[in-house]
């Protein structure tokens, strides 16, 4: 037995977006890992084929939107023989409960994986109010 398992083929999840697309073509939901530490929330998303300039990250009203465009993979003279996966836009939205420090958000795209670090706003230290006896 090996310690790491065999990867299973999984087809990408095509989704319908709440708003209508201006560009035709399928939209896929990227697979994500989300974890939280005391200081921040980190989101990792698999977005193969997305270049940094085609990636859009937006956070407003506690809704985080990630969107990435993928250009068609084929050259002009290529003919399909076997097509097992399609390409299209990646899009997914998340609602965030913690208040995020928008100024310090960091995004990194490496080997088709987006790493988004969302630092939490430092919570106000609890203030002790002493009641003075009159």
């Amino acid at each position, binding site marked *: 037995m*090996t310690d*790491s*398992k*065999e*990867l*299973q*083929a*999984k*087809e990408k999840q095509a989704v319908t977006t709440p708003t209508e697309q201006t560009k035709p073509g*399928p939209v896929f939901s990227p*697979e*994500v*890992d*989300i*974890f*939280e*530490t*005391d200081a921040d929330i*980190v989101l*990792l998303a*698999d*977005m*193969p*084929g*997305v*270049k940094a300039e085609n990636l859009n990250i937006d956070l407003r009203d506690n809704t985080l939107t990630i969107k990435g465009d993928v250009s068609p*993979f*084929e*050259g002009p*003279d*290529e*003919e*399909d*023989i*076997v*097509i*097992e*996966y*399609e390409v299209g836009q990646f899009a997914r939205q998340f609602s965030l409960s913690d208040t995020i420090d928008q100024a310090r958000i960091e995004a990194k*795209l490496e*080997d*088709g*994986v987006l790493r988004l670090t969302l630092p939490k706003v430092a919570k106000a230290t609890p203030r002790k109010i002493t009641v003075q006896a009159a």
Partner: protein
Amino acid sequence: MILKPYFGWPDVRFGQTFDEFDRMRRQLDLLTGNLMGRPATRSAGVFPLLNLTEDKDHYYIRAELPGVKAENLEIQSTGTTISISGERKIPVENKNAKYHRREREAGKFSRVINLGKEINADKVEAGLANGILKVVLPKAEKAKPKQITVK
């Protein structure tokens, strides 16, 4: 018809048990795919899913492998087959991290593709960019289509 030589695709196949379901699902996919005007995809169900295309002189294989490093990828090619194997590693994050979602998977993979036609195994090139693997396989001289002039 170009599809004919690839009728035996794929050569290596795991999980025979679900063949029946697979076939049913694929037929449904074909049906719905056609209705929605999208090209029907036909998958062998082996990771990684890949697209095979050709032009006059080359075959092109592309696969989505986000987060896979070039050093964890091994590609071998012989006269008519090419094998792609490797491992996708997901580094362990902060121990104190609380996971909310865990959809990305790590693991090993291996796939053999039989092209059915000869390729020039010495000149195969592979590149990894933005999580997409692209393998360019030059066709062997004798496998290239010959232009025949009509006199």
